[in-house]
């Protein structure tokens, strides 16, 4: 299969996932409630009482990219459940019998989680603007933010596919995913700077993809300090590629 065909197939899988979302956008709206609560309640309270020292930016500005990353992770990480449904209903089998590479299926489906993430990001930004947060709106930064969001959603959705293929049963999958999301969230810089964490936990953040997502978004949207971007984006890319390959293996395993 040529590279061009693979790209076309990936975009086809992506396109139809987005069409599904368009037919039934209920979930997208529901997924907007949580980040709103984080920003409006948690964010404003913590800003008012200056509980966490965030240097020369307000806590709300510090928190906004964190909430963005958190909400996209919480949405994408449950993506595996859709794959197990697809498997049980024969949709996945039918897809895998077409001349479509496993990589295209995993990547196309993973990237579609990015669309949900982008919609959430737009709403979060509008909400934060209303709460008085100011953003860096240069075209390059915005393009990079879009890239980071899609990459991050793909990363977590593929990780989720890997878990789904390992755990197989939905009940187990839900349990394990619930179990890992909180540590991923707390061992990141979404709510507080890494420097306030206990030292051992600071090392854990280095292998937490969410840390790199938050850091990239915060640099691009709030601080405009782009010095870490190439490295952190690179690490996020490596994580994603790793999970895409693991997800491809997972799909094959699911059908056995």
């Amino acid at each position: 299969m040529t590279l061009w065909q693979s790209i076309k197939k990936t975009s086809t899988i992506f396109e139809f996932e987005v069409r599904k979302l368009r037919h039934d956008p209920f979930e997208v709206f529901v997924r907007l409630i949580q980040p709103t609560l984080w920003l409006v309640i948690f964010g404003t309270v913590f800003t008012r009482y200056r509980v966490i020292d965030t240097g020369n930016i307000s806590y709300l500005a510090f928190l906004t990219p964190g909430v963005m990353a958190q909400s996209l992770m919480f949405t994408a990480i449950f993506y595996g459940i859709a794959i197990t449904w697809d498997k049980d209903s024969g949709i996945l089998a039918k897809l895998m019998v077409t001349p479509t590479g496993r990589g295209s299926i995993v990547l196309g489906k993973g990237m579609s989680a990015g669309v949900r993430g982008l919609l959430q990001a737009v709403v979060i930004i509008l909400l934060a603007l209303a709460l008085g947060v100011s953003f860096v709106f240069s075209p390059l930064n915005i393009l990079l933010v879009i890239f980071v969001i899609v990459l991050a959603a793909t990363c977590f959705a593929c990780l989720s596919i890997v878990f789904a293929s390992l755990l197989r049963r939905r009940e187990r999958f839900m349990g394990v995913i619930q179990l890992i999301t909180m540590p991923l969230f707390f061992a990141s810089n979404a709510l507080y700077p890494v420097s306030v964490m206990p030292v051992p936990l600071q090392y854990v953040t280095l292998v937490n993809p969410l840390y790199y997502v938050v850091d990239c978004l915060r640099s691009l949207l709030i601080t405009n300090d782009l010095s870490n971007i190439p490295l952190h984006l690179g690490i996020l890319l490596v994580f994603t590629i790793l999970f895409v390959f693991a997800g491809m293996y997972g799909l094959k395993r699911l059908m056995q």
Partner: protein
Amino acid sequence: MNAIDVQHLSKIYRGDIKAISDLSFTVGAGSVFGFLGPNGAGKSTAIKILVTLMNPTAGDARIFDIDVSQKPKEIRRIIGYVPQELSADGSLTGYENLLLSAKLYEIPPKEREQRIADILEMMELASRADSLIDTYSGGMVRRLEIGQAMLHHPRVLFLDEPTIGLDPAGRALVWRQIRKLNHDEGMTIFLTTHYMEEAEALCTQIGIIDRGQLSAVGSPTQLKETIGVGTIRIVLSSSQFSQSTLLDMITSIPGASALFQDPQILEIKVPNPAEHITEILQLIKTNGISVNDLELRGPTLEDVFLKYTGSHLEVAGPKEWKSIKQRRRSVRRAS
């Protein structure tokens, strides 16, 4: 030329569970091959290996001389597959489901719309093309799925339980389409089924699989000839007689077996029933009973099935179908 050639195929799952062992058969090009067997006989495993979803533990399978596990990518271009479950995506419309398949099967953009329109027309779904699949009946979903699987003119079409749970009208329509594909396009069809009348109506060749091995293969007529016995069903006027005496007398006829389905209903299996009918009626008369009703029939595919598998078919009833539909609804909710 053989469309499918399976030689010494085995699949052993984890935990040493043998799904199929040393399975061999061939399917001629242009035929409609029915794969029959009780639940758990290995039908689904065999079909999954043939459509490249699973690798065999041993043996090999070829479709038009292409090795299934060596060259899965080539195989996927020449086959179509309709899984047992209702696998059209419920959150997309009929047209979108077809468009998705058309794009994945690399049908050139110029031909795509025409091909989809033709399929919708052929499957009698044109008026509902833009409705979500969730609003389709079971028969409509099935027709759409067959349409999806044949968009790219596959050389072999695999159908896993194509009419499970459909009402008689829906089933008749699906049968008509299957016959048409086979007749007009010369497509080889490989199907599994639980329904004997379906196998009888559609298949030119039948393979019976039991406990992972092929126990019989042939045309429906050939298979029925191997049975050699027919059935005589007699409704008696009363039940005031000794059943065992009557059974003893009847089973003294060479090759005959008999049982009471009901105190007044006697079922006799005997070679050449027409030859023995007078004798049997005479025996009943000597017991002082008269006959209210009588039915005589030659061997059926069900008799063939029973002979080669020793079990009755478990047919999916409305309950099973309901669970399939429920599952589909949940899929829509989750995705």
